[in-house]
């Protein structure tokens, strides 16, 4: 795996001068993923924070080729880009290897873009889809998505007098992608650059469709101080709210925290969960903890089971 000195010699994928919030995790994801590529990259992005803030005409922050089409179709758009590249390769018009990377937020990936993503993954296009997952529609003002966790305060499922934020648990898109039988699926977070770039490197070393679900703390929507972005990402992993793991050809491999911290350690770092700490809401935090534990145990079991199957 490349160390930081080696990474720093690579082409910087983004310039400064984009209009993402100070402390935004999305551009951290982009830089850490794309720097992991030794080969040239070509990027497609769904509509979202990342896209609108980095490409305000005539100011493009991307130093690598970049295409935006619409909100729900980054994967389908990339299918076309990759198809043309395959055509060029087959016809002997290029021999240059390119790593194709599609970025989408959780709204454009979990919700409106799920069909497009599923289709592209099933068709086996050779590209890596990276969901920069900040667990709500941050670009349009913090509306809930199916990635929004239980209890979170969003503008379309707000905490109020009789409701305490989102009532349903989040969709597990990583597992949905695993069910597509992809050669590589990974879950990572902002805050552990070595883990994220290693997973991106791994994805780039594999031919076929790859999916990476990267938890991206959002200082606007989660409401915390801008310097905490990476630190909160790390707590998400340490509490197993967002386990770091990868699935390569069906075999699970989990990066286990040294000590599994209570989920409240994660929840209390952000305003979006503040109402849960009011008297009377203890049960909700207990439920969230139970949910985290159940999913964590299931994950451990999958690791054990698939390790056996691999032997």
């Amino acid at each position, binding site marked *: 795996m490349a160390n930081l000195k080696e990474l720093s010699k690579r082409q910087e994928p983004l310039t400064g001068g984009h209009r993402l919030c100070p402390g935004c995790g999305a*551009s951290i994801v982009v830089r850490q993923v794309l720097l992991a590529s030794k080969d040239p990259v070509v990027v497609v992005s769904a509509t979202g924070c990342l896209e609108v803030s980095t490409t305000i005409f005539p100011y*493009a922050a991307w130093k690598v080729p970049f295409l935006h089409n619409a909100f729900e179709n980054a994967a389908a758009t990339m299918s076309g880009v990759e198809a043309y590249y395959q055509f060029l390769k087959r016809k002997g018009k290029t021999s240059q290897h390119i790593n194709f990377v599609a970025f989408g937020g959780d709204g454009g990936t979990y919700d409106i873009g799920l069909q497009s993503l599923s289709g592209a993954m099933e068709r086996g296009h050779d590209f890596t889809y990276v969901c920069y997952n900040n667990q709500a529609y941050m670009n349009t003002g913090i509306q809930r998505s199916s990635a929004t966790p239980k209890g979170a305060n969003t503008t379309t499922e707000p905490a109020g007098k009789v409701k305490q934020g989102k009532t349903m648990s989040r969709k597990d898109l990583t597992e949905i992608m695993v069910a597509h039988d992809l050669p590589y699926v990974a879950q990572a977070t902002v805050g552990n650059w070595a883990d994220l770039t290693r997973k991106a490197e791994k994805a780039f070393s594999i031919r076929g469709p790859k999916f990476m679900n990267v938890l991206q703390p959002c*200082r606007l929507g989660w409401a915390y101080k801008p310097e905490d972005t990476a630190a909160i990402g790390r707590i998400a992993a340490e509490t197993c709210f967002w386990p770091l793991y990868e699935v390569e050809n069906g075999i699970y491999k989990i990066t286990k925290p040294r000590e599994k911290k209570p989920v409240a350690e994660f929840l209390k770092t952000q305003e979006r969960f503040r109402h849960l700490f009011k008297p009377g809401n203890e049960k909700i935090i207990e439920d969230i903890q139970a949910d985290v534990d159940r999913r964590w145990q299931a994950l451990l079991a999958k690791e054990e089971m698939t390790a056996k199957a691999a032997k």
Partner: protein
Amino acid sequence: MKQEKPGWKNLPLGDVVQAGTAESFETGDWRSERPTWHPDRCIQCLQCWIYCPDSSIIVKDSKMTGIDYKHCKGCGICAKECPVKPEKAITMGPEGK
């Protein structure tokens, strides 16, 4: 000085620009907190560089050489992630003193 924007006849056809034009766009004026780099304390671990959301840690030949104040928005991630103890190699202070 305000620059005249091109009319449709002078714009290239289609919604396309050369890569990296945002470099000329200043976001340094977003800053209310200003990072200061202390080279004497810096251990050149590049944690600040890999976590900077604004590509504003200047690295030359794998060495941190300064901060791009034209683009740095002053989020403070670099200072927070700096592992140097007891005093960090990047510290935050108020902007525009």
